[in-house]
């Protein structure tokens, strides 16, 4: 299972994560740290009413964290709070070893067996949830 962790699709998602960088001006800018490992996510959001209009992310973290931010870069635009909650539930699903509905999350499947890495994946999604709350 360990060998599957760093699949090519995941490595590619991490490296080529869309929407890397900062977004100026923004409506919400949130920074979240993982206290255990020092990973850090910065997420800038521009809103259109209740929905995310544009975003950018900056990750100082591992490949899993970067790839998770990549999923957000690909799929979070246009979501409102309910949409983000559904996305997070999908992440929970894949980390519990189940099939996610979002195809981009499939490459995270092998992380389920590595509990110490779950927070790496979760951190960007937590930033997203908190960002929508702040708004």
């Amino acid at each position, binding site marked *: 299972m360990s060998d599957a962790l760093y699949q090519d699709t995941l490595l590619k998602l991490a490296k080529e994560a869309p929407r890397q960088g900062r977004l100026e001006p923004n409506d919400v800018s949130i920074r979240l*740290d993982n*206290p255990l490992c020092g990973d850090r996510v910065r997420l800038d959001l521009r809103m259109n009413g209740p929905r995310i209009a544009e975003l950018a992310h900056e990750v100082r973290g591992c490949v899993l964290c970067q790839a998770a931010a990549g999923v957000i870069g690909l799929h979070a635009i246009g979501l409102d709070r309910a949409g983000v909650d559904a996305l997070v539930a999908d992440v929970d699903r894949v980390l519990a070893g189940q099939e996610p509905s979002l195809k981009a999350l499939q490459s995270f499947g092998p992380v389920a067996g*590595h*509990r*110490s890495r779950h927070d790496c994946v979760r951190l960007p999604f937590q930033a997203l949830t908190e960002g929508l709350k702040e708004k």
Partner: protein
Amino acid sequence: MRLRDQFPLLTSDPKLHYLDSGASSQMPSAVIEAVTRFETTQRANVHRGVHRLAEAATAAYEGGRDEIAQFFSARRDEIVFTAGTTAAINLVAHSFGDALAPGDEIVVSELEHHSNIVPWQMLRDRRGLVLKVLQVTDEGRIDLAALDRVLTKKTRLIALAHCSNVTGAVVDLARVVEAAKSVGAAVLVDGAQRVPHGPLDIPALGVDFYAFSGHKMYAPHGIGVLWGRHSRLEAMPPFMGGGDMIRSVTFEKTIYAPPPTRFEAGTPNVSGVIGLGAACHWMSGLDWTRIAQEEMRLTGRLLDGLAQVPDLRVLGPLGLQQRIGVVSFALGQAHPHDIAQILDRHGVACRGGHHCAQPLMERFDLPGTTRATIAPYSEDGDIDALLTGLDEARRLFA
């Protein structure tokens, strides 16, 4: 099967009558094996590590927290690990207590263990508080009738033992909680003597803090728990500083983690938590209705036997209502050390002394007592050996 058979120390010494579980209980092989399994197959530091052993150690450690939370019907983030009851109470005395204002009042009782007195005295002296004391009835119970008189608008905390480690009396917590609510005070319960006697729904008690030790509930020494209602814990600053309890550290500013992590500075007692988890797991597999009946039957047998001994005085309830099988007594002018020594000749392990409850000893004008504790592994033979030993002690000293 006798429950006793699960305890290697007891089976290796069939003539031992261990009646000192109130000090430290014995440990079943299930717990010993869980600890050894950790040290020989999973040992690593927890959290922060991604290698296989660190993952196994973290899973075993956090699995221990789950077992403990489940056993006490609590949320896992309300379980704070400490070195024991004493450390748990000191944590509250600092993290909760240091926010109190001069003139605020804390209420304890005359029968408290030093662990539930000295931290409040130290806090009193640090913060200029007032320490009020509920007296003890002749039966060895906290006099709750005085609550109305003692509580005021300035009462911030009531800190009482769930069960006395000397008299065995069980306090009426519902009444304490109600009184506390009426003045807006928090309630801390020292559960050290309660937890060895079966499962407990801690949140349902309505109290704010509940402290206990592993070594009295079939688990290793050096591990204990502070259960805290989440809303309370969230409002409290940390007690000790160090690794694991932080979100981020710079020299200007440190941001603390949420509870329970905020209160768990440094590498935890990993094997201790795993042992305590295994002890909870072991306990939850027992038939506590039967064990409680048996403990009370043996307590009755002991109290009946003691009633036959001339010049003997039991410190605590003579009936079986609202008590656990912790039985203390004084025998004429004989000193508890001498009595315990004679009992030891009969293979009976009892504790003699002030049991870290000097104010209670003053209350009863005694230097100390001899104490026997009934545990799930106690048997008729243990009581009989104690009574036989007492007979000799009386002939020698009384």
